């Protein structure tokens, strides 16, 4: 639809016409500003924890565990040099401080986008029996982590306020 609209604008005399091919879905998934009826609904962006511990594939388990314990985290994110999420390491799976992240990592965890509504994710967490999720942008770069507890609190506050 956008290519045809762009072509029509050009035929109407506009000479600086661009097409944002990835469109609204890409924009919203990146957590960028929006307006409209749904824009007021709480989304992942409102409860995102950006300071999730993140490490590289060759990082050692000892410092990973220290970081998880210090922040009270259960999972660490494993990312590449571009910040793209590769996997995750769980604190309780770390038994040897010299092990590498790559040897402990669970690959390819499910990820969510910033524009996913909180009620939708809470339902998925309930059905799928999980309590945390990593959040990435449309390019796979890690943005942070959300927890079931934070989501439930935010939804409760939203309901009371509306």
């Amino acid at each position, binding site marked *: 639809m956008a290519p045809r*609209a762009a072509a029509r604008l050009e035929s109407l005399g506009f000479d600086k*016409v*661009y097409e*944002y091919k990835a*469109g609204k879905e890409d924009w919203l998934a990146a957590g960028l500003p929006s307006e409209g009826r749904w824009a007021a609904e709480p989304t992942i962006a409102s409860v995102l924890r950006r300071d999730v511990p993140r490490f590289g594939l060759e990082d050692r388990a000892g410092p990973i565990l220290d970081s998880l314990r210090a922040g009270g985290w259960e999972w660490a994110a494993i990312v590449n040099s571009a910040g793209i999420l590769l996997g995750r390491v769980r604190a309780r799976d770390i038994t040897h401080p010299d092990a590498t992240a790559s040897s402990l990592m669970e690959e390819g965890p499910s990820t969510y986008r910033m524009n996913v509504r909180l009620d939708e994710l809470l339902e998925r967490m309930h059905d799928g029996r999980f309590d945390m999720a990593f959040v990435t942008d449309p390019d796979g770069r890690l943005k942070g982590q959300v927890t079931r507890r934070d989501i439930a609190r935010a939804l409760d506050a939203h309901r009371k306020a509306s």
Partner: protein
Amino acid sequence: MARIIDRDEVRRLVEKESAQLVEVLPKEEYESEHIAGASNLPLPQLNAETAARLDASRPVIAYCHDFQ
């Protein structure tokens, strides 16, 4: 032919060149949620009269839902 741009270029054009974002989806979809600052010109109604609300001297960025 219109140049295809990504998210970063959209932001740059809006911030640096006062580009106009135009959602070409139906009004109902636009009212549900749209990119902040975008106007709505649904494709079926896009003609010389409706396009006159745009400033032809500034860049125009057309978008829809995703890769359609």
